[in-house]
């Protein structure tokens, strides 16, 4: 059972997106997240996994359970060696207010999760770390 709380998954094909969703759904559900939060987390994971597939072709998704004192959470990490994001600030704005240009899916995913950090270097790759905490 503790295996579902952490793991890693290689993304390399389009069908990996739905596989990633299922893995994260299991992890979030078994950690005790309610159905709405599970949906948020899975949707965010879907967006970020698709980013990897679309822009880098391949990458790695990792997840593990977090504990900080009495708080419990789930941390997801998405890493790739793709083209990188030239302007992270701009990327986080795009598609937010207009609702169009779903582009990178980053601002959407950020809205669904509690915390998100993005590290990216053009030509080297991108790493997105995001967390959601169990609401008490």
């Amino acid at each position, binding site marked *: 059972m503790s295996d579902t709380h952490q793991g890693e998954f290689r993304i390399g094909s389009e069908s990996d997106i739905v596989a990633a969703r299922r893995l994260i759904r299991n992890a979030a559900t078994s950690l005790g997240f309610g159905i*709405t939060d599970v949906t948020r987390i899975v949707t965010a994971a879907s967006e970020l996994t698709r980013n990897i597939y679309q822009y880098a072709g391949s990458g790695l998704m990792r997840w593990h359970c977090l*504990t900080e*004192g*009495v708080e419990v959470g789930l941390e997801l990490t998405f890493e790739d060696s793709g083209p990188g994001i030239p302007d992270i600030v701009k990327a986080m704005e795009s598609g937010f207010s207009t609702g169009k240009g779903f582009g990178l899916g980053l601002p959407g995913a950020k809205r669904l999760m509690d915390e998100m950090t993005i590290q990216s270097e053009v030509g080297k790759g991108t790493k997105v770390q995001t967390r959601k905490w169990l609401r*008490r």
Partner: protein
Amino acid sequence: MPEQTNSSSKSPETILGTDDSFRLFVDSVREYAIVMLDPAGHVVSWNPGAERIKGYSQEEIMGRHFSCFYTPEGIQRGLPEHELEVAAKEGRFEDEGWRVTKDGKRFWASVVITSLREKDGRLRGFGKVTRDLTERKQTEERIRQQATEIMELSTPVMQVWQGVVVAPLIGSLDSQRTQQFMERLLNRIVETNSPMALVDIMGVPTIDTQTAQHLIETISAVRLLGAQVVLTGVRPAIAQTLVHLGIDLSNITTRSSLAAGLRVALDMLNLQVVAKNAGQ
């Protein structure tokens, strides 16, 4: 708390507590675990409070490293060493966290570790005071649960007729409360298969930008389900705030009273209320 900084007239043994009256004090305290550690972190002094809270007798614990009080995760993360480091560098370390008794049972502890130094600044050891806060934590948990229950009770979503739910909001709305309300409203709409939802905000005194945004989000979400919201009880003050905030309510049906909203709802459902003796 054993703060031993001014020990010019006392011998080293006094610091470790062979002074009669001080030792008597420490030995009488049962609420706090008062423990002395050598510079490496081994237990050199124990008290009845420590035995009560952590479960070890003096014979069992003397000389052992204090990391045995920590959880496996705590040890893995290097907490014991880190806490001593901070205490040595800054004079004290204070925190709340999980600790473990001799039987492996977890308890929530409040911990203060103080570094004890000789007159010349050499590190003599550490004083550690621990308090078991499990009971306080349980009370906090209970209060949190009750707060949630109160929140749910004060924002009910009630089915008043086939196809119509009513949600009277009362009190000031913060972001969290509005989000929880949104989820509850949507779930009730699906459960009761109600295409009309009357959200009454007569009892809401003020509204800020974020809450207004959440309300708009709620209305959008209801539409995605295939239902409609009629916002009722919009007070002048709220109307002003919403307009000043630039919130566009032009495609949301609003009415000033819940009664008027109900009329709209029934109308949209092609229903009509007719008096019993009509036509007689």
